């Protein structure tokens, strides 16, 4: 493989990995802090993408669409927590999965009613619609670099929020001893609502910024959800740091699994095997560390 091609694939894998992190960080945060398995998390990614598409259509400007779609996502998160999710904190896993699966069906139906079942596309905003020339024949789109940039900024902000602020301390404290946090005069229910809304917003934001490079289509949430669960399992359930490492790892394995032509004993491994690479990685890591890379030991 040529150096330029390698570099392009490396940038692609980092961009995909960081985007995965944006989505899966919310999934792992909501699990780590509230103990909720939310299988509807992928739907927020889809909702974000459709919001970006429909608002860009209406407003005629991607940035204006983004500025409106983010607060809409926050509101969806807050309302959903209040309406549905808060009743799950004391229920067991089966109720959580059943209810959030029901949400997927509802969101898909609503999407069909509101936006139809066609595949949509969002244009890359003009300001970022350019390429950086790597060689005479190869270049790299600026917009993809911008996606990586946004994801890195968000990851940095998340680190700051969780590790350096009092709200972050409360969030971490609430993940080990909810009752004690309450007894210190802190409204844990409010913290939970904010964390859930944060997770929804991050996933929706990922959908919005990904819309111009991937098409906007029905069921896109479910496709990404499966990969996100792989990320969360590899990284360790509840670990944001683990989600970051696992996302980048999956980005690399998935991207290079598709472009490398691996030969073993003169036999070409079929491209079909490449689509399994992510799951093979998960299986290998779980054999080595059943609790995931940064997971807590559970006996």
């Amino acid at each position: 493989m040529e150096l330029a091609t390698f570099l392009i694939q490396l940038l692609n894998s980092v961009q995909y990995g960081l985007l995965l992190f944006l989505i899966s960080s919310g999934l792992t945060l909501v699990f780590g802090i509230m103990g909720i398995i939310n299988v509807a998390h992928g739907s927020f990614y889809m909702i974000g993408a459709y919001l970006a598409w429909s608002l860009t259509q209406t407003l005629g400007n991607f940035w204006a669409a983004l500025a409106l779609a983010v607060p809409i996502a926050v509101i969806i998160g807050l309302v959903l927590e209040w309406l549905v999710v808060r009743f799950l904190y004391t229920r067991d896993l089966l109720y959580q999965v059943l209810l959030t699966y029901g949400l997927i069906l509802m969101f898909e139906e609503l999407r069909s009613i509101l936006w139809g079942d066609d595949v949509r596309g969002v244009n890359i905003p003009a300001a970022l619609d350019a390429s950086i020339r790597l060689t005479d024949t190869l270049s790299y789109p600026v917009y993809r670099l911008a996606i990586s940039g946004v994801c890195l900024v968000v990851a940095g902000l998340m680190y700051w929020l969780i590790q350096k602020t009092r709200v972050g301390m409360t969030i971490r404290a609430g993940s080990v001893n909810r009752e004690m946090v309450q007894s210190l005069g802190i409204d844990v229910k409010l913290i939970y609502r904010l964390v859930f809304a944060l997770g929804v917003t991050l996933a929706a934001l990922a959908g919005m910024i990904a819309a111009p490079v991937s098409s906007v289509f029905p069921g896109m949430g479910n496709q990404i959800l499966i990969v996100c669960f792989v990320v969360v399992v590899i990284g360790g359930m509840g670990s944001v740091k683990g989600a970051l490492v696992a996302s980048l790892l999956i980005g690399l394995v998935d991207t290079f699994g598709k472009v490398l032509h691996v030969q073993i004993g003169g036999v070409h491994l079929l491209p079909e095997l490449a689509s399994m690479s992510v799951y093979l990685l998960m299986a290998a890591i779980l054999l080595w560390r059943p609790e995931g890379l940064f997971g807590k030991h559970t006996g």
Partner: protein
Amino acid sequence: MTEPVAPSLAQPPLIEAAGIHTHYGASHVLHGIDFSIRAGETVALMGRNGMGKSTLIRSMLGLVRPSAGRVMVKGHDMTRAAPHLIARAGVAYVPEGRGIFPNLTVRENLIMAARAGASGQRDWTFDRVMASFPRLAERLSHGGGQLSGGEQQMLTIGRALMTNPDLLILDEATEGLAPLISREIWRIVGTIRQSGIATVLVDKNFAALSTIADRVQILVKGQTVFAASAAQLRAQPEVREAYLGV
């Protein structure tokens, strides 16, 4: 013209529980208990294991829902109020088993709890807690889980003080600690008491509490069997033997 009333009596009790019944599932744990504490008082809540001491505390703090009875905090009915609202009314709680956050550093354990008290007082600052617990000052960047049992207890008490409470409830403050450390904890509790914060001390052992407590209330099987001054309990070894003896 009415006679002026002494302020401490004019104010309603910090906590006043009346006729508290609490169930855990089918088991009836508390059978109509009354409990109250006024500003500046130190009350020992005593009894053997499983007599309902912690359940009474948890029922008053909103952590367990009493099936009957009333909890007044400073004259306001807070029987079924959320725990954080009761805490914000000026009640701090150091639970049995301490309840530090092991995934937070000592410093984070303290500053996450910092706030002004119910009447806006900021007597207890980070610096004052450091001065009162020099051992914690040396371990600020340690994880809460790396501390010894005694240090953890100091951290929980320090953290409770960071909320500037009017009432501090300590459940089994010296349980499982070495005698030397226990004495240190009781010394600190004495200082807190002198600073004007009322304290409820839940314990099994009268010897440690006899000089600190103003009043003693003893529970047996979810009922109050003794409620009087600490001096009266000192004078009645047969009561201690019957209700607290091992």
